[in-house]
């Protein structure tokens, strides 16, 4: 068939084979269990499993138990696309949970759109996206980066230095930061990108040092963080002299980077293990009971956990597992998540979240030093920020 024969994206191309007639309904988990990203994504798979077992123990979704089909994305976008196809077409799952890197999400997006299926994506990301087939339960930029800048501004920071890994999230984040800085009279003293996985930071650290900014905004990813902070400390820079705000360092990374290298540095998230509310106490306790006491909980894990409950809420509100019905019912679904109350935005499929500025403590845990007064409505395209006009076309 010619492409023009179809009105839109080939919606006719695949018929859903989801079977909801039995006592169980299948859902797919798609996380990297091998490759470089497995470090992070395994933890997400764990908390997804926790959520499912809790839900099943409590009677399931609309009386049906969830049956998990786990797939390995192998840290490769094309494998994510392939496995997503498999989950939808061969395993006939009702929804898929997973993905971490933007590239994995971008690779899966057309699969979910053309097969008209649902993906729950649990990681903070660079925004500028909104697909009817994806629910984004991590933060978009106006729920993480912008409030972090607000915080810095409030602390009297006049100049910042940007350090990031060379890929889409840091580049987009820094575009936003630059626009914000321009609008708010903050000077951006430098913007440096290291190749993904880079371990040599001597020059970048030299540049940071000689730029002498008030703070560093760090969007580095993975192992690069370890190298960056060690070498940052090696040249004599400290949290007191020049604090670093990181957006990708969560509890489980702290140990790897080294508490002594991170102590006092800032992180920007929507959840920390130390968040104090009953829902979180229950979540942390359940998680540790299931996976061991030494396992910390972190923002993406919490977002993943939350995503399963949100799905449950949507399905039950819709009274059906049918994709169109779930989509229609999604808006306004809420959940008392460990991070606090979250609400699904029916328009852009993100969720309203509270921002938490954190500081790494001597025990390796992160404590909140500032939080947004209320959950922030998601605005992936930054429509409500006049200074951001022009970002994202």
């Amino acid at each position, binding site marked *: *068939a*010619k*492409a*023009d*024969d*179809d009105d839109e*994206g*080939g919606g006719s*191309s*695949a018929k859903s084979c989801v079977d909801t007639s039995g006592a169980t309904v299948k859902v797919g988990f798609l996380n990297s*269990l*091998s490759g470089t990203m*497995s470090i992070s994504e395994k933890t997400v798979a764990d908390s997804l499993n926790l959520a499912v077992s809790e839900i099943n123990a409590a009677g399931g979704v609309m009386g049906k138990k969830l049956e998990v089909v*786990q*797939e*390995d994305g*192998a*840290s*490769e*976008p*094309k*494998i994510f*696309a*392939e496995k997503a*196809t*498999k989950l939808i*077409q*061969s395993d006939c799952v009702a929804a898929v949970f997973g993905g971490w*890197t*933007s*590239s994995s999400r*971008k*690779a899966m*997006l*057309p*699969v979910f759109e*053309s*097969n008209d299926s649902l993906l729950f994506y649990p990681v903070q990301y660079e925004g*500028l996206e909104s697909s009817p087939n994806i629910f984004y339960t991590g933060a978009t930029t106006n729920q993480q980066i912008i409030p972090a800048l607000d915080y810095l501004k409030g602390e009297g920071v006049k100049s910042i230095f940007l350090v990031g890994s*060379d*890929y*889409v999230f840091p*580049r*987009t984040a820094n575009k936003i930061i630059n626009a914000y800085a321009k609008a708010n009279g903050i000077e951006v003293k430098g913007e440096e*990108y290291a*190749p*993904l996985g880079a371990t040599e930071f001597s020059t970048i650290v030299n540049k940071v040092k000689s730029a002498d900014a008030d703070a560093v905004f760090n969007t580095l990813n993975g192992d690069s963080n370890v190298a960056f902070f060690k070498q940052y400390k090696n040249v004599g820079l400290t949290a007191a002299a020049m604090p670093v705000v990181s957006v990708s360092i969560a509890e489980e990374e702290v140990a790897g980077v080294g508490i002594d290298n991170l102590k006092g540095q800032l992180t920007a998230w929507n959840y920390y293990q130390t968040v104090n509310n009953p829902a979180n106490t229950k979540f942390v306790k359940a998680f540790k009971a299931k996976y061991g006491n030494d396992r910390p909980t972190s923002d993406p894990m919490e977002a993943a956990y939350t995503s399963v409950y949100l799905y449950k809420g949507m399905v039950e509100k819709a009274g059906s597992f049918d994709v169109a019905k779930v989509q229609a019912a999604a808006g306004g679904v809420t959940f008392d998540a460990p991070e606090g109350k979250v609400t699904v935005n029916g328009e852009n499929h993100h969720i309203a979240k509270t921002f938490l500025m954190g500081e790494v403590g001597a025990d390796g845990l992160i404590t909140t030093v500032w939080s947004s007064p209320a959950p922030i409505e998601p605005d992936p395209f930054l429509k409500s920020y006049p200074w951001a006009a022009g970002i*994202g*076309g």
Partner: protein
Amino acid sequence: MKRLVPLLAYLLLAGALLLLAPAILTDFRLSLLSRFCTFAIVAVGIGLAWGRGGMLTLGQGLFFGLGAYVMAMHMKLDDAGPGGVPDFMKLYGDGKTPGWWEPFRSPIVTLLGIILVPAIVATVLGLAVFKRRVKGAYFAILSQALTAAFAILLIGQQGTTGGFNGLNGFKSFFGYAVNDPVNRRLIYFLTAIILLVILAGMAQLYRSRFGELLVAVRDGEERVRFLGYDPANIKLVAYVVSAVLAGIGGALFVPIAGIISPSDVGVVPSIAFVIGVAMGGRTTLLGPAVGAIAVAWAQTSLSENFPSFWSYFQGGLFVIVILFLPGGIAQLPTMATRLRRRPKPPADPSPIPQPRAAEPRAAEPRAAEPATTSAPATGAVA
């Protein structure tokens, strides 16, 4: 007789790809197989460069990527419509289509580009490398460095190459919806047939004088120089052909996988290409193609069942095959074929050695050897 074995194997492969697979595989599996076929096309090229020419190229990802990106650029532009700007550029770029994208709006330029871009890059690189007599491990490591550089370059140019995300979200392939199951089957057949045609062409090349010359260069590059050839040119041809094949594989990969990103062209995927070739049998004709498909298939099905086990399995497979089966799986059934040399030409009057009176002893010990396999196969014609 000996010529029959490869022919039979070829027909078997053709039958399996064109008749059997479409009949028994689900749409999803078939589309996996089409992806594997694109790897097989790359593998055939590596077989030529490495198996025959001795150039272990750890950088086929570069050419695979060039072909793929050319195709992907066209598909993105096509989706954007006449004069339109691809979606990701609006997000991450300056909202304009860069000049070097424009030519690929045209399907014809794209088809030419898929062949010519890898060919030209390979020619330039090859001239630089082979004329300066860089070879062996130097060449292997250099080609690896180049593909690493290429991946880094792609990642750094977010606004024009899609950066780390690569290019994806395609809707149509030369006007056909990529997600339509019927079209996906058509793409499968297209890929399989291209693979088979390439294999047939390669068979001819292997048997040609050029094929022999390439082996000569592999075994004694300097010596070939003293026969009046410039070995650089011979290697160059093989290298460029292998680059073009990688480009074709890459171009077909894009509509099938629906994505091309730097992680498909870097160091690791480049080595993965070589894996299949080594497994299948680098010096044989069908070995690389079959090996590539087999390894990719094993990867997919194993990682479905035992995600973290795959690494062990892949590693172990490598070790065992290279160590104990240096000729690859092709070595198993066709030891005879592997040893097959050119059959005695028909012009030769007699298969029985008739040593000239003057040097009888030179011939005798060899003729007396019972165990050698190369009994003259008189009359086996091309």
